[in-house]
Every structure is written in structure tokens, then in C-alpha cells.
């Protein structure tokens, strides 16, 4: 018997003939930050809806706190959707009071937001709105947090502060599930699960997701020519300032594509993003 706060066991969800989530198994334990990665259509949102109890599994099972997702179980988790779920016409304090009432809790306005408590949420910056949404989600002391792209649109310092709050919650024993398609957020997680076309295709740390995907850094004074030559040869290219990265390609392929363009090649480990896209393309 697992002590996971959240577990999916070969969870599958079909819509007619379409398999949105295909036999995915996943666990989030107390104190752990798990990142859920994948392109659009990978099945992340459907899986989250199953976890929240909004969609039953067609096969397999999903458990929240060891039981089928229910209203009681949902009251023990905090959810921050991408759209934040705040009322723009209500003030910061009113938003928190309203959410508190729903859960039977009193949610104090955090110190960092004290100066803004009487301002309508629609009139404060997005970074601050995210802090309010966090305070709302954490206000009833949930045991599990589900965050959908938690720091989309905020500046790096606000992002660092939001992640401080996430880590702090995890340190106090809260389990956290984060969906993201930004690699800097993925690197904040303890463990990652990569989904593609409904399936789990890789799991573990960053190194496990990257696997043995290599990228060749192509340094040349003629990066524009190099880029066009590699692109024409069907090599997956990424721009990196004034050089080009050839993802998941061999040195021979790169040399052949470059022809007489002089270039220095250096084989490096792929970045998380490069490896993820290379896997998606191969699928």
C-alpha cells in the first residue's frame, strides 16, 4: 500500500476512439515537487482533470489520499489553474475571504500583499495576482498542491519568490504537482514525468529525460548559411545567439549538410527542451 498523496495507476481516458491519456502511472508523495511535462495534446490537462475528479478514468484508476477523488478529497488539495481563478472585480482581501469561506478557513492577506488588500485584483500586476492565487490555494492548508504553469508571464524575481513559496510548502510536507512547458520551472522540480501523445515516455531527473540525446554546437562566422544548410537537410536546429545547435544529429550528418561552410563542431549534451522536442519528433 502506497502512502502517496496522489497516485494514478495505469490511468486511461478515452473520448470515443481517441485515447487522451494512455495507461499513465504517477505518484506524488508528501514533500515532493513533481513536474509534468509535455507538448499540447500530450494529455496533461486531461490527466489533471482526472486527478481533480472532474473526469472518471476509462480504465485503471486515480486515487487522491488513497481513495477515489471525491468532494472531501478535493477539499484537501489546492489548485491554481493557469487562468488563476480569481475574481477581477473583487479586492485582494475579498478574493481571499471568499475562497476561505468556501473551505471554512480564514485566509489572511500575506504580508507581501498587505499594501494591496483593498485593490481590485484586476488592477494589480500579474506577478501580484499569482501571489494572490497562491495565497488562496494555500489558505486552507492543503496537503497537495496542483499548479498549472505557475509562473507564466511573471518577471524572474517574482518567479524566484513564487518558487520559494512552493519549496517552502513542500518542505512543510505538502506534495506538489506542477505542469509546465518551461524548462526553468522543470529544473525546480524533484522529479519529472514527460508525456507525449497520452503516454508517459520518460520519468526521473533531468538527466533521465535528456537520456543520451546529444546536440552539436556549430560555431561559424556564417551562422545564417549554416542555419539554412542544416534546416534544408532536415536537421532539427536551434538558434543560440550567433551560433546554431543541431539537435539529435551526428557529426557526419552535420558536416555533410554544411558542405564547404567552415565551422567548429562541439558535441554537447542536449538541453531538457531540445531532448523533449527530439523525443516528440521521433514519436
Amino acid at each position, binding site marked *: 500500500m502506497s502512502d502517496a498523496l496522489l497516485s494514478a495507476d495505469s490511468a486511461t481516458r478515452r473520448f470515443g476512439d481517441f485515447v487522451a491519456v494512455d495507461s499513465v502511472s504517477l505518484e506524488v508523495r508528501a514533500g515532493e515537487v513533481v513536474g509534468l511535462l509535455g507538448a499540447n495534446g500530450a494529455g496533461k490537462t486531461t490527466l489533471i482533470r482526472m486527478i481533480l475528479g472532474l473526469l472518471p478514468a476509462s480504465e485503471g484508476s486515480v486515487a487522491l489520499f488513497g481513495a477515489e477523488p471525491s468532494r472531501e478529497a478535493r477539499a484537501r488539495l489546492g489548485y491554481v489553474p493557469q487562468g488563476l481563478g480569481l475574481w477581477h472585480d473583487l479586492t485582494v482581501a475579498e478574493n481571499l475571504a471568499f475562497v476561505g469561506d468556501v473551505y471554512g478557513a480564514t485566509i489572511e492577506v500575506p504580508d507581501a500583499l498587505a499594501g494591496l488588500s483593498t485593490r481590485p485584483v484586476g488592477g494589480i500586476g500579474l506577478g501580484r495576482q499569482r501571489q494572490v492565487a497562491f495565497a488562496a490555494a494555500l489558505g486552507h492548508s492543503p496537503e497537495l498542491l496542483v499548479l498549472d504553469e505557475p509562473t507564466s*508571464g511573471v518577471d524572474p524575481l517574482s518567479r524566484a519568490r513564487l518558487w520559494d513559496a512552493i519549496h517552502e510548502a513542500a518542505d512543510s510536507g505538502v506534495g506538489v504537482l506542477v505542469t509546465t512547458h518551461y524548462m526553468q520551472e522543470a529544473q525546480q522540480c*524533484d522529479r519529472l514525468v514527460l508525456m507525449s501523445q497520452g503516454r508517459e515516455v520518460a520519468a526521473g531527473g533531468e538527466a533521465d529525460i535528456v537520456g543520451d540525446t546529444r546536440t552539436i554546437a556549430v560555431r561559424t562566422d556564417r551562422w545564417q*548559411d549554416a542555419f539554412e544548410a542544416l534546416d534544408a537537410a532536415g536537421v532539427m536546429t*536551434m538558434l543560440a545567439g550567433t551560433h546554431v545547435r543541431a539537435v539529435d544529429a551526428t557529426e557526419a550528418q552535420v558536416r555533410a549538410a554544411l558542405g564547404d561552410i567552415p565551422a567548429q563542431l562541439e558535441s554537447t549534451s542536449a538541453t531538457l527542451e531540445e531532448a*523533449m522536442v527530439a523525443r516528440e519528433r521521433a514519436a
Partner: protein
Amino acid sequence: MTWGVSHLSVRYGDVAALTDVSVDVVAGEVVALVGGDGAGKTTLLRAMTRTVPASGGEVRAPGVAEIGFMPTQAGVWRELTVDENIAFVASAQGVKGADLAQRRAELLEATGLTQATDRLAGALSGGMRQKLAFSLAMLHRPPLLLLDEPSTGVDPVSRVDLWRMIAQAAADGAAIAMATTYLDEADRASNVVVLDAGEVLLAGTPARVLESMPGRVLSSPTRGPGSFTWRRGHSYREWVAEDPPAGVARAADLEDAVVGAALAKEAASV
């Protein structure tokens, strides 16, 4: 050709939206404008199209006919099909005949929309729609491309396609300025300008940005004693005002450098 702004200031009533901002947008290169919501990225791009008046400084940009502008989360007509979107922009920009046919084929191939020309733009995925919006902005091959958060909300696979199109436009000689909230994208640009509350926090090549942060960022497995600390994965970071010893980097990467510079600014304002 180098476009850009010099010592630009923009005010909205009493609010300073931009203060003394200088940015070069160089042909064949991408400059990334990095900052959160409200940093001034959109105002800067709008000032370059001259739809927002400058209260000081200089704007160096061609006329609107030679600018491709991609607004944030828009730039396509959702109730028109892919083909109708292209036809509409082509007629507005005076692209026609064989040139239009060639341009249309190129852009449809790059976006992967060749089989979807009859689809309503509103029915496309977010990534597809952004790629279409980029195609429309550059349909007339403008020498200056201004992109407002083209990749926000776009998944990694579409983002790679989008970057491929951006790199292609730069390779063809366009000068490109793109706003983004993400620093991993700034690494793809030749130059980076980090905006914070309407001011330039850091600017230059990614390497130069690392060198120009005041003080240094320390990394350790435990939380430091100062108030300027933050978590990053399993380790802690701390910004301190002292310079590092010779030969030691001020920060490990752009993310640390930008957070450090923002904290340095806070420290200076207290």
C-alpha cells in the same frame, strides 16, 4: 542597418512607462526584451511603431509599411480561415501575384498549415495560431520585425518551429526585437535587454549581461543568512553586494544574474 531607440522615455500621464531606455535592433540578429508583466516591453515595441509617443529620446525605425508587428496573443483574425488571413494581410501589404504565391507556400510549409488552409484561425491550437500570426507579420518581408511575446503559452514543439521561423527571418536579413518573459529564450538571442519597471536592468550579449550584474550570486546547499536569498531546485542562491574574486563568474547563468540585478536594485532603493 541598425534600428532601435536611444535614451527613450515614455509617460502615460503621471506614470513613467519607460525611462532612458536604449536598444539596438540590428539586421540579421535577434534582440530579446526580457521582463515580466508591466516591465515596459510592449510600450517599447509600440514606441518603435510610433503608435505610442516618446516624451524624450529618439526612435530609429522605418515607416510602418516596413515593420512587421506581431501583437501579444493576437495577430490573426479568428473568424477567418488560414487562407483568408493570408489573403487579407497580403492585400493590405500589397503582396500579390507570383511573389504572394511563393510567400504563401513558404509560410504554410514552415507553419505546417499546408493541409489546414480552410480551417478557421480560431480553431487552431495556440502554437499553430502563433506561428500563423508570425507568418502574417513577416508576409511582406519587412526589414524590421517586432514580436510581442510570440512564444507565451506555446508548447515546446511549436516553440522550436517558431524559433526556426524567427532564425530564418534573421538569416534572411531582418532585424528582430522580441519580447519574452523567459530567460531560456534570451539565450537564443544575440543580445538581451532586461527591463524592470520601465528601466534597463541589464543589457548586452548574454555573456556581457552576466558580467554586468552588480555584486555576485552565491550558490550553497543551505539557506544563506542574508535577506536576498532564494531557492533554485535543491540549492539556495544568495545575492551579495561584494564583487567576486578575479576569475570567478558573478552568476552561473542569466536567470541568476537577472534575479541578482533585481535584488541589487531593491537594495539600492531601500
